[in-house]
């Protein structure tokens, strides 16, 4: 039996609403913060072209946050958010976004890891039975294609500069790694599992994490940036256990 399309918030299964609210808040807050962090490099990228690209990505991320915040206005029990203010006091952002990016490699690691992790989660909503989410996800994913090219292109260029830069990138990847890998949720998706059951997301947890690792694993291998990811047969997997005991599922952030 196919799940019926859900065209408005009142059509959502009641038990799914809190998990959907938590997910959309965390997606939007992270995109809002990421947009502002990208924006801080608008006029200070290594080249004019890279500064303009950072500006374009900042505009994209702030736009994504705006449409996701708009979705919250329709959902019962959702916190109020505005794209016009800096992150709210209870913003659900990962630690890597807490402070400005002090160097261009910080921006690139955020671009490669966090930006693409958020995009991959939204990609699981491309066929969502909840139409307000599906419609928003489609537009966002179109723009994210260029963010992925930017991040991967710059990671390759930076890594080619030599071992000191690769070591720096390795350290930054280590910093961002726990939050980004946990973002997909525990094995079966944790709190997101009910959204999968209702057809609001196509998948969550390990399946999405595996797809993410399948993209960045070969990238890190090719560039010589060391990340805790290993290939076993044809499958890329995390080489170290993830810190689930410190994972805050609602804030979607590892407690430190």
């Amino acid at each position: 039996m196919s799940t019926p399309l859900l065209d408005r918030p009142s059509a959502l299964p009641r038990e799914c609403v809190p998990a959907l609210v938590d997910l959309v808040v965390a997606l939007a807050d992270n995109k809002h913060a990421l947009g502002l962090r990208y924006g801080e490099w608008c006029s200070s990228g290594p080249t004019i072209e890279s500064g303009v690209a950072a500006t374009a990505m900042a505009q994209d991320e702030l736009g994504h946050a705006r449409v996701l915040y708009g979705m919250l206005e329709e959902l019962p029990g959702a916190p109020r958010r505005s794209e016009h203010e800096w992150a709210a006091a209870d913003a659900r952002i990962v630690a890597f976004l807490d402070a400005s990016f002090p160097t261009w490699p910080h921006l690139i690691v955020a671009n490669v890891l966090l930006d693409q992790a958020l995009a991959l989660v939204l990609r699981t909503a491309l066929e969502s039975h909840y139409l307000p989410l599906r419609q928003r996800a489609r537009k966002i994913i179109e723009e994210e294609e260029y963010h992925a090219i930017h991040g991967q292109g710059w990671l390759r260029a930076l890594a080619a500069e030599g071992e000191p830069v690769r070591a720096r990138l390795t350290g930054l990847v280590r910093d961002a790694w726990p939050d980004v890998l946990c973002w997909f949720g525990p094995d079966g998706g944790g709190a997101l599992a009910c959204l999968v059951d209702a057809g609001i997301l196509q998948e969550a947890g390990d399946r999405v994490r595996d797809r993410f690792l399948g993209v960045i694993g070969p990238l890190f291998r090719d560039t010589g940036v060391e990340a805790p990811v290993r290939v076993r047969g044809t499958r890329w997997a995390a080489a170290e256990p993830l810190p689930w005991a410190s994972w805050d599922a609602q804030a979607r952030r590892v407690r430190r």
Partner: protein
Amino acid sequence: MKAIGEEPVYEVFARRAEGEPLRHVGCVAAPADALARVYARSIYDEESWIEMYVVPRRAIIPVESVRAEAVDAHA
């Protein structure tokens, strides 16, 4: 990565509407094709182009030029 000013230059071409000619709209400097695409899209987005291309400047074969050496190099 090459130093600023030493990166390869890509010429950017775009078409506004079906039937219109492909126009040269500018150039970008980028270390590789992939980033050249991103930069062209970011910088030359003032119109709703239906097509856009980047071409490495070194791939363009001169036919005539006041700079004779540029033509001679490909003769």
